[in-house]
């Protein structure tokens, strides 16, 4: 294992910010794993630490395949993580909206550049990402529809789903998008936690990465093959929104198979406890996402359901 500092940002009031990378094996740049780009992505750093631990053991046993190398960058934003801020400590900009970066630009552009220049020639790029809304997902691999995405390859992670959606203009400055444009086969892995550690889904994601790298011939590792992943397109999912604000009392969780007309949740009055609204499943299907916040605005997406009539 080689520890290197990819980028260092000077500071007058704090210790310099160092972005560290851990490299295993040698030879071609086969795979790069990036953890937290935001300061609240604790689960994402945790998953990287688990991966680094496994890679270290595999390397000692000669199981990083010859001529292959893997790099893990646990945290791109330690200064924000150390003060509990999601975005950049000084100006609240999002490093994951600054790629490919610019070495003469503003601070977060320089950070993005300082990382991206070291990782833009990897064959495979894997980012442990998080969603802007609080909530839980079925673990999945996510990708944007560009002309460079590799949906079939994503099934090698063995997670239950590969989720693909249309890229929006604001996606064009994310790490995943720029990896794709630079020729790296890029995948974002989502679990059901961000600012807390969820051991079960972390283990599932770590196994998924190891399984993927094993199938791509980068490591030799005897691991669970996982699921035969199903590709779902963003527009196939059915959104269920709250019409009424209040306490969100959830009855259906991720992975649940729900019938049309079934009660998913209730919205109650924060003062009186009176039930203001009942959230009903509009279709038969599997709960892919549910919101996680205890109080909700009106128009808040509460559930995303994968339609299916196979409910047994």
């Amino acid at each position, binding site marked *: 294992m080689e520890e290197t500092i990819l980028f260092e940002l000077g500071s007058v009031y704090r210790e310099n910010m160092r972005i560290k990378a851990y490299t295993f094996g040698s030879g071609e740049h086969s795979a790069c794993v990036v953890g937290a780009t935001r300061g609240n992505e604790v689960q994402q750093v945790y998953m990287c630490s688990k991966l680094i631990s496994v890679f270290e053991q595999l390397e000692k046993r000669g199981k990083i395949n010859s001529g292959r190398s893997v790099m893990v960058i646990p945290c791109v934003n330690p200064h924000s993580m150390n003060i509990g801020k999601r975005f950049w400590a000084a100006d609240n900009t999002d490093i994951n909206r600054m790629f490919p970066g610019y070495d003469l*630009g503003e601070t977060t552009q320089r950070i993005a550049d300082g990382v991206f220049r070291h990782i833009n020639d990897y064959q495979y790029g894997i980012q442990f990402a998080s969603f*802007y809304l609080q909530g839980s997902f079925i673990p999945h691999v996510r990708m944007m529809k560009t002309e460079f995405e590799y949906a079939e390859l994503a099934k090698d992670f063995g997670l239950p789903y590969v989720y693909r959606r249309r890229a929006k203009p604001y996606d*064009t400055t994310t790490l995943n998008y720029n990896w794709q444009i630079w020729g790296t086969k890029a995948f974002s892995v989502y679990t059901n936690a961000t600012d807390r550690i969820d051991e079960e889904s972390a283990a599932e994601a770590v196994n998924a990465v190891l399984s993927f790298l094993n199938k791509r011939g980068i490591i030799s590792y005897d691991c669970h093959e996982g699921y035969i992943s199903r590709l779902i397109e963003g527009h196939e999912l059915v959104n269920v929104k709250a019409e009424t604000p209040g306490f969100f009392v959830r009855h259906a969780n991720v992975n649940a198979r729900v019938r049309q007309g079934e009660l998913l949740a209730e919205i109650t009055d924060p*003062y009186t406890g009176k039930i203001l609204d009942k959230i009903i499943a509009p279709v038969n299907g599997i709960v892919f996402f549910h919101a996680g916040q205890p109080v909700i*605005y009106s128009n808040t997406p509460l559930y995303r359901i994968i339609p299916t009539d196979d409910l047994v």
Partner: protein
Amino acid sequence: MIQTIASVGLPIDETLMIKKNRLVPLKELSGNEKRISIVTGTHGDELEGQYVCYELQRRIRKQYHCLTGIVDIYPALNPLGIDSLTRGIPGFDLDMNRLFPGAENGSMPEYIVSQIIDDLKGSDTVIDIHASNIFLEEIPQVRINELSKDTLVPLARKLNVDYIWIHAAATVLESTLAYSLNMIGTPTLVVEMGVGMRITKKFGDQLVDGIFSLMKELGIWNGEVIEPKEPIISDDGEVMFLNAGSSGVFLPAVEHWKNVRKGDHIGDILNPLTGEINETITSQTDGIVFTLREYPIVSEGSLIARILA
């Protein structure tokens, strides 16, 4: 006439409402009146537009008989942000000006911005007033995407600003209010002036003078207006950026909107712990400083100044 253009229920006994005030001529409307929309408060820390909204209405009321078209004033597209000194949308930590055109069936922020677009579309001109951020001070200027320059530059010249900056198209900017409206045929000018969390009255007065000038051009106002000043117009090629090469405390040595010569001292980045100068910043060109660092603490990369060569 105050109208609510979008509303969302908040959890605890409150409704978020995006409001506008519509000013119409005294005479009966024919249906052919021109409409100008003044929008601001997308970023909760940008307050310069608040004074403009007030002052514009104060002057219109003084000569209401001169109003011949419709003026829609939207002081706060992000009222929760303004109320809580938050640049983005509180609760989501999202930049509202990266969500347009939004989606009626999307999340709360996406729903709100879709309603804003619905209400603004069809205006003869929209003026979207920004105030830089808390870090930088800007002279009154209009920023125009090069894709829309043929339509927008003639309108911008009426606004009595010092500078019109025609910038290159960038995909990420397609999520802004101005881009979304311009692409559906609603001419939208982005004004930047002043500094975040402050109101610079002289800039506000200057812009209000210009808005009346534009209103007259559009047939919305028939009272006396000023002759707008002739702005400097440039593209990206003439703008030089000065960024900090080290962190520390920035102390400027120049004044905002003043000429500088190549090699002139722009300012120093100080180290308060050691009492040393970490970096001396000099101009790389002859020009005029139209953006200047306001907030003293800087990191490597922080923007110090923009100089129009």
